[in-house]
């Protein structure tokens, strides 16, 4: 047993060594919702190298394009904090509107699109001038936020209204709404900005939406042996850059699903920690890291093998995660 474990570790390390050529020691940042901290993980050693105090109830986190800054939704502090990653100091607080939960950074590296969960609003902030550019009425409990890679459209989900709201990034106005199943959470654009993936936590499925027509073209449902269908609650979504796979975190089902993005077939269910929320790739996408809310840890998934290879204890209720490459 131990031997096997060591072998897997060895294997993991050797795959890491291979990837070292492209990316030196990478670092993962994890927000711990109930600890008001960030955990910093060295992806070489899988050790926690630092735990940093931040604002209250940190949830969504996001890197600036040059990876020098980290934006943190400090939900109960009603602010977005900006951390300098070379010093781990908070250098600025942005006016975010009340209760910021998730956000997305426009490809222009300046405009942050923030979901204000308590206020049924989306706020757009200029990160350079700290100016609020617009506040847009959306549905009840806005949650997921994404900006298309081409920068033209921002989308937001509202959990109790059950909609995907489409925002024109030029006019900063709401242009359309698409009704999806109960409690939509995360949204993710395909790299070519043509397809949008949206998870419905209570509906138990993922809607694939054609961006041009804003119509649902597919719904992907999940089934895991031995897990009650009601416990399959899709939250986080990640699409691989090679366009092959979509990874969907299934919450209290404690698994992530791997979906073929061409056929929309579920290829694999990978067991991770308890109540898996969100995910992040490392730079070369050989690894996928998941935050597991209830078990308070991060699972490292080897993508080539489609297997969980390591779990790392972090703080209480880990929520958001990003990986910084050096």
């Amino acid at each position: 047993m131990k031997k096997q474990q060591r072998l897997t570790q060895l294997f993991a390390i050797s795959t890491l060594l291979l990837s070292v050529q492209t990316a030196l020691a990478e670092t993962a940042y994890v927000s711990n919702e109930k600890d008001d901290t960030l955990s910093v993980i060295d992806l070489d050693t899988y050790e926690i190298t630092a735990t940093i105090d931040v604002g209250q109830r940190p949830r969504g986190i996001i890197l600036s394009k040059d990876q020098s800054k980290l934006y943190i939704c400090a939900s109960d502090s009603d602010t977005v904090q900006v951390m300098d990653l070379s010093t781990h100091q908070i250098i600025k607080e942005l006016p975010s509107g009340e209760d910021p939960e998730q956000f997305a950074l426009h490809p222009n590296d300046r405009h942050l699109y923030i979901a204000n969960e308590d206020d049924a609003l989306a706020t757009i902030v200029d990160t350079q001038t700290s100016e609020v550019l617009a506040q847009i009425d959306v549905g009840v409990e806005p949650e997921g936020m994404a900006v298309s890679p081409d920068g033209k459209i921002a989308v937001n989900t509202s959990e109790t209204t059950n909609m995907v709201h489409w925002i024109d990034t030029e006019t900063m106005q709401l242009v359309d709404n698409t009704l999806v199943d109960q409690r939509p959470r995360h949204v993710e654009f395909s790299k070519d900005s043509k397809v949008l993936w949206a998870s419905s936590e209570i509906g138990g499925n993922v809607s694939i939406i054609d961006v041009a027509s804003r119509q649902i073209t597919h719904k992907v449902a999940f089934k895991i042996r031995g897990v009650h269908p009601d416990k399959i609650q899709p939250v986080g979504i990640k699409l691989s850059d090679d366009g092959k796979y979509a990874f969907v975190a299934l919450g209290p089902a404690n698994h992530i699903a791997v979906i073929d993005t061409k056929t929309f077939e579920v290829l694999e269910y990978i067991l991770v920690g308890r109540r898996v929320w969100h995910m992040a790739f490392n730079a070369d996408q050989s690894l996928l890291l998941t935050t597991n809310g209830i078990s308070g840890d991060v699972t490292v998934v080897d993508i080539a093998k489609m297997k969980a290879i390591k779990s790392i204890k972090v703080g209480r209720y880990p929520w958001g995660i990003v990986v910084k490459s050096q």
Partner: protein
Amino acid sequence: MMNKRINGLGSYFLLCALCGPLLLSQSAQAQLDIDIAYIKLQQEHRPVLSNILPEASDAGQRGADLALQDSNTTGRFLKQSFHLKTDISDTPEETLTRIQSRYAQGIRLFIFDLPAGALKTASAWLNKASLNSVPADDVLIFNTRAKENALRVDQCISNVLHTIPSRAMLADALAQWLKEKRLNKWLLIKGSTEGDHAYAQSMQRAAKRFGHKIVAEKQWSFDTDLRRLAQKEMPLFTQTEEYDVVVVADEQGDFGEYVLYNTWYPRPVVGTQGLTPVAWHRVVEQWGAAQLQSRFEKLTGRWMNSQDYASWLAVRSIAEAVTRTNTTNTTTLKQYIISDKFELAGFKGRKLNFRTWSGQLRQPIPLVHPRSLVSQSPQAGFLHPSSELDTLGFDAPESQCRLAERF
């Protein structure tokens, strides 16, 4: 911009008419106005010994208010506008008059925050009136207060859905947890009101269902002021054959609060006091509930309770049906709500829907004490062929109601 939005929606409806769950409506582009009457008979609070923390007098009503807000936020994207007509009365007679005038105004969607007696009278009147009108039988009523098991078992009323859990659901939720904890020997003590007796009966039924033993049963009848004498009276009152747990049936909180820490044997207290099964409580915060709690507190300045939650669910059920069917036709809404397509996100970690036989909303039951959530039933391992939620309360074979057949 407007045009674009409507086009998008129209095509969505078309698409999903193909995949089943939505109906295509010709009126997809028209403004819909949905009127809902909220009818409340003010609760009488008889004087109780434990009168330190008063009940909110607007319980229930504010839950409906919040759900209306939530639904209109959604509605503005779909050109659906919800209106709540709130009538609060002090007597059953006045209640009926109000209902009659709302019906005359054309309202067909009702939320009844009424005790069982008034609920039966009012529903009977509405059902009779609507049977003789055109289109016939087009009323829909939500019961948000009456927990009587009989309404779900043998006193079935047409067109009534229950969003408040029955006493049997609460009792079963507690009994499952007690089983899990192996607290199998109960001392059951009850007060003297009708509700106390009904609660005790539900606990007796649950004891049988889940294999517990009631070692002694007593009725509280003392009339001393327990605030001074609890330490003396309660130990003697609870001195019986040994038990694992004391189950209290005191719905209005007359003496129950004084049982804790004063029992003859040092044992936990559960039931209407101590560890309590509820539809909702401030300590429920998982599954996004924290957001609902904070919206409610912002609106009302107080905590959301079970009655508020039941009213919230009633308005949201109507709004969800209107959103998905895009109609105000009550018959269509009724059929959609009772169908297996209906799903409601109720902040309890799974989708909620209605039992087709009794019209009872299936829902997990939180077990709470005043400062924290202890557990949520159904407990793991209590299995059911179709839904584990149906291990709580009266299942189809145990009920004579066949509500859906008449919808």
